[in-house]
């Protein structure tokens, strides 16, 4: 090989590397069931416009990013899409069509989806009518499950210390199943494959004759054909990157998938397959036809029309704020997570207690902690998944017997391990059944009636009921002997406290006029026997409940050291102000209060009042939610009883509707929205731009909470639009895999991502309306433009149409951001007051 050839080879290798990495970053990560957080499944496509991403997916997997035509037709028929919505959408999309043409198109069917970029196995299925794709998916899925298993199997895979690709080569050299399926030469062929995954991919592209221009699409399609495990591998690389490391499992997975294609292609190399394969490649090179482009334009207009219909109501409400003069000193201040479920509860609380003030803020309350539960050897992150925790917080036990509680927990958990071993080991499982099996008779009955939990509650496992109230997170460093870990750096050092507190209070726009009681309410859910239970918990707390964060921040704010420091920094919290931690149970709409014994006696009346308000607000919220839960016919107490029963029902597949129907994100003072009924569809973030020095807080809002809201919104969107690929299918078939990695649907197949049908659809209709997020921020346009310019991620989301951004002016008028830094007024006075929601 001469010099120039070497250079050329190197260049093409580098190019291929880039293409492989590009295909891998197209995949969005999947968080495990033990802390399942929402992910935008199209996160890897955000550098393309929404429409381009839709076209790309259509060419790769055959389905676009829009709902089927029938859905829009239904929306039009029932009046959800109006003619004026379509007219406005035409204008917004810059379309040359007229409304009549769109309505006409609505009555016709969209062209059938194309085949997309098929794998060899899919083409083979068409040639032979076999089950090759299912077989390949099954083989890879089984291998991944064993390789990544978090602890389901008693006997683990021996090659877990190798890379995924190397482990696969070891296993495939032993595996007899391909031979059973008629691939006689498979094991020998695997042994001859390149040892390095990237080299293997290069070999595959060459053997399969994938044209240069189709390489990235082919690789993307290959990953999506095993998309669940690809998402898991992407999660591992995401976590590794967060810790400054690197994980290439996803490249290994890609190599395994394309090696299957190659091996099938070689073994089955008959003329029909080769011809069909080439035909498919050629077809995949052709850009979408004019007919398809026209259909996509209609889809785009219809989606925009639906969004416009939703936005109109919000815009009208924002233009007519209640704007009551703030009370002299609120009776109570209550901060909730920005979560859309808080909106319902806050509105209820304000209704029953007009003198109370509510605040919306990310549910981790701005404190970056990792929480180590009592007796545990490792902590759990409680911060949004794009960040790393800064402090490690341990639990403390009030009273003098911390050691006993810890030892007891260790022992009890240890015995439950021993018992599990007795139950599951090959030689003892039979005796387990004969001696202990009968006890499941009564247990079946009590579980069925909701009197007992099918398995111990993970949070209180091994702790006696009477001790539970004495345990809580502590700001102080805990002696290492007590916590079982060897990390002395725990707690929040005194020197840091005032700084942290100041940052948090300013971000919450709480710098004066404190009430006597300030409630910090995180949120969590109560469900049993629900694999996706953590999906209902707080996303800002990395899929945990908001309890630990709220308790830590409340303790921080009550700490005398913090208060002294805050005074020096110009925030004077009155002597009689007390911060109280709580947890809003989103399944039952109850608010649990923590550490109430520490509340000064002088506040006992305020406490009693608060408890009463919270109870009444809970009643109101439950009433509002009852219609969607199908309980509208029940009286008040009936609804409460039913909702409680749901939270304990092991057969309940819809304990709550969670964030279904989310559609807006509003960052403004609460006074702007307090007169509106946002119907539990809006994230609400407190923001007063006049108090934001240098727009630091605005920057934070647009780079973190807004992005998280977009992730949640797009998770719902993707799960509705293409549930088979971006959702997790039918919940009644879910089969947990790898301990807590995720779920399979039925026997096996690929790992599933996203949300189950039961969380989106009530059996008759979609409860979630798939709309892109409409973001309304009350801040100067220039400030937002500057932030958008500075942050690529934000710019991509805004300018590539992954969300709609609106500016709320001081006068309540709204302006929509169009193109680059161009703000257009939305409608003006004509539309104002026309559609005030629910007033």
């Amino acid at each position, binding site marked *: 090989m001469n010099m120039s050839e070497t250079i050329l080879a190197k260049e093409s290798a580098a190019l291929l590397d880039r293409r492989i990495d590009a295909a891998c970053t197209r995949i969005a990560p999947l968080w495990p069931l033990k*802390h399942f957080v929402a992910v935008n499944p199209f996160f890897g496509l955000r550098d393309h416009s929404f429409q381009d991403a839709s076209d790309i997916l259509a060419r790769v997997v055959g389905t676009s990013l829009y709902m089927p035509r029938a859905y829009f037709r239904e929306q039009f028929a029932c009046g959800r899409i109006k003619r004026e919505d379509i007219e406005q959408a035409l204008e917004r999309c810059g379309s040359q069509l007229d409304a009549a043409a769109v309505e006409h198109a609505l009555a016709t069917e969209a062209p059938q989806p194309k085949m997309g970029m098929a794998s060899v196995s899919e083409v083979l*299925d068409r040639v032979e*009518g*076999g*089950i090759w794709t*299912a077989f390949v998916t099954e083989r890879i899925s*089984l291998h991944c499950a*064993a390789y990544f*298993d*978090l602890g*389901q*199997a008693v*006997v683990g895979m*021996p*090659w877990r210390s190798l890379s995924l690709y190397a482990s696969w080569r070891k296993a495939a050299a*032993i*595996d007899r*199943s391909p031979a*059973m399926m008629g691939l006689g030469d498979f094991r020998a062929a695997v042994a001859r494959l390149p040892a390095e995954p990237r080299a293997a991919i290069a070999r595959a592209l060459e053997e399969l004759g994938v044209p240069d221009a189709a390489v990235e699409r082919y690789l993307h399609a290959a990953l999506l054909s095993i998309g669940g495990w690809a998402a898991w591998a992407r999660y591992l690389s995401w976590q590794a990157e967060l810790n400054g490391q690197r994980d290439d499992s996803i490249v290994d997975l890609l190599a395994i998938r394309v090696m299957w294609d190659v091996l099938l292609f070689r073994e089955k190399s008959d003329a029909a397959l080769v011809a069909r394969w080439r035909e498919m490649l050629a077809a995949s090179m052709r850009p979408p036809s004019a007919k398809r482009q026209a259909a996509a334009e209609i889809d785009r207009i219809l989606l925009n029309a639906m969004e416009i219909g939703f936005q109109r109501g919000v815009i009208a409400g924002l233009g007519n704020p209640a704007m009551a003069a703030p009370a002299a000193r609120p009776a109570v201040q209550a901060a909730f997570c920005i979560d859309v479920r808080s909106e319902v509860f806050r509105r209820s609380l304000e209704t029953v207690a007009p003198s109370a003030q509510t605040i919306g803020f990310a549910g981790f309350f701005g404190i970056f902690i990792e929480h*180590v539960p009592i007796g*545990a*050897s490792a902590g759990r992150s409680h911060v949004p998944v794009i960040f790393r925790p800064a402090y490690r917080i341990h639990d403390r036990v009030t009273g003098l017997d911390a050691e006993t509680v810890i030892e007891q927990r260790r022992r009890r*958990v240890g*015995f439950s391990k*021993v*018992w599990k*071993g007795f139950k599951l080991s*090959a030689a003892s*499982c*039979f*005796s387990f*059944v*004969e001696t*202990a*099996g*009968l006890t499941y*008779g009564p*247990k079946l009955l009590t*579980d069925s009636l909701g009197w007992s939990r*099918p*398995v111990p*509650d*993970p*949070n209180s496992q091994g702790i006696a009921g009477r001790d539970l109230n004495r345990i809580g997170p502590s700001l102080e460093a805990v002696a290492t002997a007590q916590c079982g870990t060897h990390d002395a750096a725990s707690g929040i050092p005194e020197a840091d406290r005032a700084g942290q507190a100041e940052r948090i209070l300013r971000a919450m726009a709480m710098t004066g006029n404190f009430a006597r009681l300030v409630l910090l309410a995180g949120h969590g859910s109560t469900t049993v*026997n629900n694999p996706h*239970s953590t999906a209902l918990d707080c996303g800002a707390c990395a899929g945990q409940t908001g309890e630990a964060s709220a308790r830590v921040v409340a303790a921080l704010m009550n700490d005398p050291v913090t208060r002294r420091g805050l005074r020096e920094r110009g925030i004077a919290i009155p002597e009689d102000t007390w911060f109280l931690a709580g947890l809003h149970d989103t399944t039952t709409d109850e608010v649990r209060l923590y550490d109430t014994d520490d509340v000064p006696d002088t506040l006992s009346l305020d406490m009693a009042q608060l408890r009463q308000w919270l109870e009444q607000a809970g009643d109101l919220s439950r009433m509002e939610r009852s219609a969607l839960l199908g309980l509208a016919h029940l009286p008040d107490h009936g609804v409460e009883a039913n909702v409680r029963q749901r939270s304990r029902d*092991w*057969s309940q597949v*819809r304990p709550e509707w969670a964030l279904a129907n989310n559609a807006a994100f509003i960052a403004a003072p609460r006074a702007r929205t307090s007169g509106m009924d946002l119907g539990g569809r809006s994230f609400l973030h407190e923001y007063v731009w006049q108090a934001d020095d240098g727009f630091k807080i605005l920057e934070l809002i647009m780079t973190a909470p807004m992005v998280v809201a977009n992730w949640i919104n797009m998770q719902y969107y993707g799960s509705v639009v293409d549930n*088979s690929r971006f959702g997790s299918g039918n919940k*009644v*078939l879910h089969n*947990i895999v790898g301990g*807590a990695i995720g779920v399979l649907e*039925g*026997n096996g197949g690929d790992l599933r991502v996203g949300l189950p*049908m039961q969380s989106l659809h*009530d059996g*008759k*209709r979609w409860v979630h309306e798939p709309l892109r997020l409409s973001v309304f921020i009350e801040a100067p346009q220039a400030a937002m433009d500057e932030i958008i310019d500075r942050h690529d991620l934000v710019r991509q989301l805004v300018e590539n149409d992954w969300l709609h951004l609106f500016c709320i002016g001081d006068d309540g008028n709204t302006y929509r951001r169009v193109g680059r830094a161009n703000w257009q007024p939305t409608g003006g006075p004509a539309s104002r007051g026309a559609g005030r929601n629910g007033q």
Partner: protein
Amino acid sequence: MTSTASSFIPALVLLAPALLWLGGLMPSGSANARPLRMARLNEAAAWLTFTIGVIAAVAHLFDASKAWRLYSVPLPGGIGAFSIGTYVTSLTVIMLLLVSFVGVIVSRYARNYLDGDPNQGRFYKWFTLTLASILTLIVSGNLLMFSMAWIATSLCLHQLLMFYQERPAAVLAAHKKFIASRIGDACLLLAIFLIGSTLHTLEFSEIFERMAAMDGAMPLSLQAASLLVVLSAALKSAQFPFHGWLIQVMEAPTPVSALLHAGIVNAGAFLVIRMSPIMSHSGAALAALAVIGLVTLTLASLVMLTQTSIKVSLAWSTTAQMGFMLLECGLGAYSLAMLHLVAHSLYKAHAFLASGSGADAFRAPVVRYDSKGPKSGGLLFALIVAGGMTAAIGTAFGVTWQQQPTLIAAGAIVAIAISQIMLQTADILYQPAPMLRAIGLSALVCAAYFLLHQMFERILNDSVLPLRDTASAAQDILVPLTIAVFVGLLLMQQFVKAARSSLRDTLYLHLYNGLYIDVYITRLLQRVWPAPHQPAKTPGARS
């Protein structure tokens, strides 16, 4: 035979399935239109059958009346008569209570679980019919009626397995089960023909009487019949190598799995126990049962250890447990098999219904223990302690080891099991207090075992014919073989868990792949009876 005074309970018992048969007559379409009403109706019917079970159980304590015939028609060829009637023994009562209880729980569960599914009504229809047929099977007093219920169970269940008929994997598994069941049906019908033509009756009660009175060797035709019963039971109980369908029916909703694993799959063992009057005369059939059971339990329990998804792991566990049950039958320990059947049903129903809780254990705080790893001397020591404990407790319960060789095998299995408790405690909580607790727990487990065994032995006294001397020759080999298999299982388990060798790696992978039998069967089936191939589509608007 039908004295009015004592026919109350047998007639009542027949009412249980009859009620359900009526409930299942609702056409699918109207059932789907009123899913909630179907759910309530079904649960009420299930509670009613359970209540009947309770009444029958109480009454059975005072009234030993057994057989009752409502209707009878003689069959040609002198093979007895087909009759609709019941045969009430303790076995009947226990099974009736068990299955109706599981029916109640599963029915309650499905009401919310399948809420919103457009076919929820259809689910309840077929669930009701499946329950009706399995209850008919339990109460029936005539072999032909039994076999018809046996076939009906499988056909009704087929509808539930095909609940999501748009899923190719569901169809494939259902086809697999369908074929296995039809072979099983053929075996059973042939066995019935042989029994009828030899004994000239198909009534369970009369068969029991005649076989109890039979001395010496059993006629060849009945020997053949007993082997056919073994085959039929093995097919019904998903024994190796016909286990594939059971592993793959996770394509049906969880409640179907619960009902199948808790109420239907054990019909195989029930058949054997019901046929104990004949089985106990056939050393060959019992030996065959024991060997099938041993092979299945060994392979399936090892495969179970390697599985990575919760439901598949539970399915392998069921296969293994069914194997163990047949082994117990093969050893003539019918009462132990019955104990196992009941306990396993309750355990497995719970395990399936609670399978959504699997991730909870991983949400709990991580508590690490300094594991010292297994020591070679530790295992031996634990086995000796456990063996001594078992011998002592067994003797205290009045076991005479020399005369009950079966119990030596059973005791050895228990001893091996409790040695695991002590070993694992020693491994992670090596301190005197937890160790004492582990020893106490082991003693408790051991005592519970012997107590329950005695209870079931006494209860089943009227329902089974004990092993005959003519058939017990094989036991001298089977008992040591069983003990050897369990010691081997213990060692194998340690080997696949901890050893470092390429042999171990190879073994692991073959076990993880379920030893391939099923891949081959799938491929074969795909050729002769392919599942309709449908590319995955958005489940989309289901309305």
